Structure formats: C-alpha cells, structure tokens
C-alpha cells in the first residue's frame, strides 16, 4: 500500500493550526444555541400564544433538514436580507463586509438551538412533578419554581446530552469549509490538494477529531459522575 506515514505527521501539525478556529465555531454556537434552546423550550412548554407554533416549526424544520443546507441558506440568504434592511434603515455597511465566520455562527447557532431545545425540554419534563408542587406549596411563583427548582435540575439531567451536542457541533463544524472557512477539514483539504496526499491528510484530520471527541467524552464522564452524587444518591 502506498501511504506516506511521515507525511501524516507533517499534515497533523499543519492541520492542528486550524484547531483554534474549529473550537471557536463549535463553542460560540454551543453557547448561543443554549440560550436559544432554553428560550424555545420554555415557549413550547408554556404554549405562549402564537409564537409557540413558530417555535414548534423552527425546531421541527431545523431538525428535519441537513446542516449543510442551513449553512448554504444562511450564507446566501442572510446577505440578501441584510441588504434589504440596510437600505430600508439607511445603514452604511453592506453585506459584503460581513465576515464569513458570522454566517457559520448564525447557521450553527440556529441548528444547535433547535436540537438543544428538545434536549432541555425533555430535561424539564423529567423533573419530578411533585417538586414543582412542593415549590408552589411553599408559596413560590411559577417563575421562581422554574428558576430555582426545575431548571437547575433539568440542566443537570440534560448535561450528558448537552455534552453530546458539543461533539455533534464539533463534527458539524467540518462543514464550514463549504463556505471556504479554514477550520480543520478546510485545512485538511488544502494540505491534501497542495501536496497531492489526500489519504494522509484526512487520516491526520480524523486523528484530531477523534482525539477531541474522546477528550470531550472523558470530561462528560467526569461531570456526570459528580452530578450523579446527588441525582441518584447512594448512601454516603
């Protein structure tokens, strides 16, 4: 077989340079998506008039369509929208001055928000209903009960899934190269085509993704173990 093993090492260090960008386009949408997710989950749970229908559709549509299309549609559609608004409100900037990474942030955040809203919603539903009643019985308002009793527990219940979301976004970020962002996969493609060593480059990229995933899983396992201390208990 014709594999240049030494080049895998060279490619590895070359591609590693793109890791910070990959981490940025993974974590920023994770955080924004988290906020969207909580908001959407609450809107859907409390069936807030009219907008819960929109929230339902948002979640179902984003979950029912490929991420690559979200990227393309945001990348092509957002500038159109932006320019229309810019004209209307007399902004001085035009869409061509929007940096590429913004499109990735928007597309990934919307995508992550839809998935996370489902995760958080099922977390909220998993909280013991009796505790909500107990919160009411001591005179808490609905929002106090949500903030102090339900959400903290719901987030802890959802934590493993939220960590999986990180891995999902990490892998999803490999699609950002489709609008020529130089993250890990983008870099791997460049290294591959400039050196005409495709297999070696993608092996190197795979090793990096794999390593990152295992790291994330380890951290999740540690967090979970700590949380289980009082979620499941076990006599101390």
């Amino acid at each position: 077989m014709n594999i240049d093993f030494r080049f895998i090492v060279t490619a590895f260090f070359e591609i590693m340079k793109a890791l910070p960008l990959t981490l940025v386009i993974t974590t920023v949408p994770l955080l924004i998506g988290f906020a969207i997710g909580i908001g959407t989950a609450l809107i859907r749970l409390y069936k807030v008039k009219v907008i819960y229908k929109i929230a339902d559709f948002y979640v179902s549509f984003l979950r029912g369509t490929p991420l690559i299309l979200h990227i393309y549609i945001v990348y092509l559609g957002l500038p159109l929208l932006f320019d229309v608004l810019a004209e209307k409100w007399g902004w001085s900037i035009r869409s061509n001055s929007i940096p590429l990474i913004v499109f990735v942030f928007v597309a990934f955040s919307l995508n992550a928000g839809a998935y996370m809203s489902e995760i958080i919603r099922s977390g909220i539903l998993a909280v013991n209903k009796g505790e909500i009643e107990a919160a009411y019985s001591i005179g808490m308002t609905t929002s106090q009960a949500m903030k102090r009793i339900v959400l903290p527990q719901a987030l802890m219940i959802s934590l493993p899934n939220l960590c999986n979301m990180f891995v999902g976004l990490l892998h999803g970020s490999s699609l950002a190269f489709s609008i020529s962002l130089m993250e890990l996969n983008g870099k791997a493609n460049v290294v591959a085509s400039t050196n005409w060593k495709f297999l070696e480059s993608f092996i190197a990229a795979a090793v990096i993704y794999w390593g990152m995933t295992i790291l994330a899983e380890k951290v999740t396992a540690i967090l979970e173990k700590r949380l289980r201390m009082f979620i499941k208990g076990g006599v101390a």
Partner: protein
Amino acid sequence: MIRLKNIKKSFGKQMVLKGIDLTVEKGEVVVILGPSGSGKTTLLRCINFLERADSGAITIGDLSVDCHRATKKEILALRRKTAMVFQHYNLFKHKTVLENVMEGLVVVQKWPVERAKERSLQILEKVGLSQQIDMYPSQLSGGQQQRVGIARALALNPEVILFDEPTSALDPELVGEVLSVIQKIAREGITMIVVTHEMGFARDISDHVVFMDNGVVVEEGKPNEIFHAPKEERTKQFLKRITPEWRYSI
C-alpha cells in the same frame, strides 16, 4: 380560622368532591378519614390550589378566595398562608437538607440568609435531623426525608399545615418516627389538616375527625364520637374494616 364552603371538583365526568363544607379553628388538628378514592387528597390539594376546585370558596384567616374566579395573585397569597407535607416527600433533590428548609424562607418570605439558616437549624433540630443538614435527599431514609418535608413546611410558620398521607409511602418500621414528630408539633398548637390511614395516630392527635366517602362528608365530630360511637352506617363499616390494624400502628 379556615373555612371551606361548598367545594366541588370534577375530573372529566367524574365528580370527586360534591360540595364539601369544613371549618377548622385556629390551633385545631383535623383528621380526614375515608376509603381510597373518597376525595380526601383532592380536597386537601384544593385548599392550596394544587388542584383548582370548580366552585366554592376558601377562607384562611383574613383572606377569602372564590375558587372558580381566583386570580394568580390570590392563589399565591393563599399558598403563602399554607404549607403542605406530601405523601412522596417531594424534597428538592438538588438541594441539601438545610437548603430545602431555607428555600421558602429566603425565596418566598425574603428572609436574610443568616436568619433563615438560624431558624432552619432550630427546626431541623426539632425534627431530629441536626446531624443530616448537609446531606442530599437521596442519601436519607424515607422517614428522614419526610421529617425534612415537615421541617420545610414548619419553617414557613404557616397558618395551617396540610398533611397528605404523610406516612403511606414509608416502610412500616419508619412510620413511627414521622408520626411522633407530627404529634410533637401538633401539641405546639399548630393548625393542621391531616389525611391519613393510621387510625391509632388519627385518634391520638385529632381534635376533630371528618369521615369522607364518595365525595361527601358523611360524618364529623370529636374523635371519641367517631371512633367509638359512629352514627352513620358507612362510618361503622369503614372503621370495622380498618380497626384491627390500629393497635399496631404506634
């Protein structure tokens, strides 16, 4: 004083409460008895609006609420005058024993944390849990959990504490410790409405006994009258079926 007037409640087509009237004097301990499905628990849950009654009125102290029309604000005000001890404890799983007891004081009654802590510690001592204040509910036995539940209710100094079958989820050997705590606070003159199946306990702590069946109050009176000289046939039947147990209960 607490007064319930003509409380009605249906679940779907089934009428669970068919117009209940009940008066509880300050400092009185009222025990509600009755076969399962008689509506006792629903009645209790209507008092603090965990279930909204279809019609009727509830008065607690100076606050009167029409069940059908009650606003969020009225419900909240009513809940702040009451506290509840649940069958399944319903402790806040993510909070320690101490935090569970402090929660209502700090969040609802806006006490400063230090003072809330002081009071909570006193109350936890009263229910015999001074050693467990930093544990999480899942690390406690059922009896200990229920005592935390009682402490949580007691801390708020409510006008009435509602007990919803506080021992029926417990293993038999743990029932005693919970009942003796309830008995202890009953002697302190706290108003209580208790739904229970423990007959001996009911007879010992109650000032007034209400027997419910099928959504109506069949008979009520002093514990002596109800337990030893029930007038209604249904009460007699019920007591006959259940009495052999109560020698063992405390």
